[in-house]
């Protein structure tokens, strides 16, 4: 079946099995491989993208359910000039293996859209769905605080 999507600002029409999770449409049909496969069961958050501004687990979301919706992936978010999260992640040197980090940033982006100065508790609540096997959590937390400060400072 044909599914119409808006991905990173571009309108796309695709012929796919409608049960295909959005993750695989992004990765295999559109070559947007920054969104990762980690568990296939919405347990780890490596596949986090935004659908109409909401962070979702794309590994369990059938493509048919997002027809006509606005999807943002890490490639879209990172293309924003000097995105404060991307900057903060670099300045705090957060990643180790790096596999989960795009998903972490996508989750954090939603938090920063809602809170100008999130507390540790708010960060925990928002980020608990994203697993990092290298356990870079200390730096993820510090990078989110840093990104919020960059954003508040208009930098």
């Amino acid at each position, binding site marked *: 079946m044909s599914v119409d999507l808006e991905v990173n600002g571009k309108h796309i029409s695709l012929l796919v*099995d409608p*049960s*295909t*999770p959005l993750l*695989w449409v992004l*990765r*295999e049909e559109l*070559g*947007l*491989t*920054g*969104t*990762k*496969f*980690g*568990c*296939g*069961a919405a*347990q*780890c958050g*490596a596949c986090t993208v935004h659908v109409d501004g909401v962070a979702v687990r794309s590994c369990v979301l059938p493509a048919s359910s997002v027809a006509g919706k606005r999807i943002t*992936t*890490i*490639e879209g978010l*990172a293309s924003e000039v000097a995105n404060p999260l*991307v900057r903060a*992640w*670099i300045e705090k*040197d*957060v*990643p*180790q*293996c*790096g*596999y*989960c*980090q*795009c998903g972490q*940033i996508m989750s954090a982006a939603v938090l920063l859209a809602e809170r100008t100065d999130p507390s540790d508790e708010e*960060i*925990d*609540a928002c*980020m*608990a*769905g*994203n*697993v*990092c*096997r*290298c*356990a*870079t*959590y*200390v*730096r*993820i*937390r510090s990078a989110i605080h840093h990104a919020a400060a960059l954003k508040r400072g208009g930098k």
Partner: protein
Amino acid sequence: MSRPSTFERRAFLKASAALGGGLLIAIHMPSRAAASASAANFAPNAFLRLASSGKITVMINKAEMGQGVATSLSMLVAEEFDADWKDVGFEFAPVDAAYNHPGMPMQFTGGSMSVMAMSEPLKKAGAMGRAMIVTAAAERWNVPPEECATSESVVTHARTGKRATYGELASAAALLTPPAEPKLKDPATYKLLGKSTRRLDTPDKVTGKAIFSIDVSRPGMLTALVAHPPVFGGKAKKWNEAAALAIPGVRKVFAIPSGIAVVAERFWAAKRGRDVLAVEWDDGENAGISSERLHKQYRELSRTTGLVARKDGDAPAAIASAAKTISADYELPYLAHAPMEPLNCVVDLRKDACEIWVGSQFQTIDRATAAGHAGLAPEQVDLHTTFMGGGFGRRANPASDYIAEAVEIAKQAGGCIKLIWTRDDDMRGGYYRPLWHSRLAATLGANGLPEAWTHTIVGQSILAGTAFEAFFVKDGIDETSTEGAADLPYSIPNVQVDLHTTKVGVPTLWWRSVGHSHTAFVVESFLDELAHEAKLDPMELRRKLLADKPRHLGALETAWKAASKHPLAPGRARGVAVHFSFNSYVAHVIEASMQNGRPRVHRAVCAIDCGRVVNPDTVVAQLEGAVGFALTAALYGQITLENGRVQQSNFHDYRMLRIHEMPEVEVRIVESQEPSTGVGEPGVPTVAPALCNALFQLTGKRVRSLPIRPEDLKA
């Protein structure tokens, strides 16, 4: 599941014997031009590339799985090359003897040895390049080379005021003969080494540009999933090929030695095809395996003495004749590595050649194994090392399991395939940290100090039957089973450590910190038991027994001092542990409390003595991460088997520590001018015992099996 590696063991042994186990400084060109050679105008050795544009590329012969090795190895070259760090980038090296681990006839990443082993060769590689650039400048200006200075990729000559960039000199330098023994810098003059430096791979990893093998795409590539037997060694009897082929996009379904492969145009079709295969399995001889039964059998075996790995004095006699002995049993489960990127591999197999893209810690062995399965010579196989989404030892398998499987699929599918293991495949695919049992006994002298210590270890050998057996299994004892126990650092007059090696049909493998992942927990917990029995402060007992171990003590006192700066809140306690592994000394002080009947970890203070440090921030990052990795195992980690079947399948039942459970971490690096030693693994072993020692103070309950069960901590 396990198949014999086609890696040529005899050649491996012969080559290793010839090298005498010493360090081979391999600074020569690879036999085949490395991938980037064409873009470089100056390539004085296997590791350094310089283009006329000034761009410097360091060839990385180690796997970057998060430990920061691409950056630290680049720093080693850049320092001696006197490079402008802004010009420096890296590439993963192809498989070639020039990139072998020093002293070993193969390219691999493990044992926390990358910086330890590569420091000298890479410094020499950089210094060689610098000497040639300087000679090129001196010849051009007709001045003595000794009068030329270098800094940030520029050569200058003070007397004449001449100046040239490295890029401008690249082509001239390329015509010179490399010096055999270039002069190295005085470490006091280092500009880069020892200073926290941002990782080179971070920008690509936070923008989605970094390519892991799962991201590789090739023209005409198909995706394969495999239905694996639910019991290790099981064989498929019957399956519904037609049902799978009826799924649109499924191209082929066939049996391979490790299961039934479904090859499709896309992942989702392969997954749907696999879901309807309805395979009937012949479970084979491992259908009776149960973790519970293994624990019982191991416990019984631990009542007898195994092969003796360490014997000082006569500990069994001292214990037999003592009025009072303290004894305990410790149990640890199988553990999965569970890297975030599930195992996968891309194979493009043609008639006379094969290209492989894989996140591999074991390039030489993996290439040889792939070649064996493909019916090609290793030189006909091009193996491209990609970033890897975590390794922790799983991507260093002497059996090359998922790589061999991918080649088997490509053979029947024809052309290019990407094999993807789902999380369930990964969790149930074996090659676990072994299940262990330890039985300990000790007696105390009148002064409260231990007089005798016996430790019987029971578990599977990781290395028996692999190419590594000849190196690490001596007189029947796999060193990786007893490491951290046989080298007990404490001053005790009578010590005996012995080992029973079991054979179980569950494939095992090294898991971040290997044997130390069980021995440090057991030794550091039991020592704490002895301290409480003797009514001695656990820190005080360690100080007394480590009086002649300055580096253990250095780490311990550093961590304790840093931890003591934080006043202990009511309801909290501190536990301590110290351990030597991968040639580094690490101590943890863990501050914990009980909240709603469950352990809560508030702060982990860690001190490491790992000799001279290349990139301090990487050391800090590795130790921060090690706390979370080790807490995951201590609080949640267990793979259990019943009826030969692994019970866990995904992160809902093999839980990972999450951000709200992560404690504050404080890392102290002990100043040292000793040679650089391991960093990636040594942060793991002491976390669990330090935590459990804190929990004992809080609850009076001794945790003797992991993961920690909150019900065992109830009063």
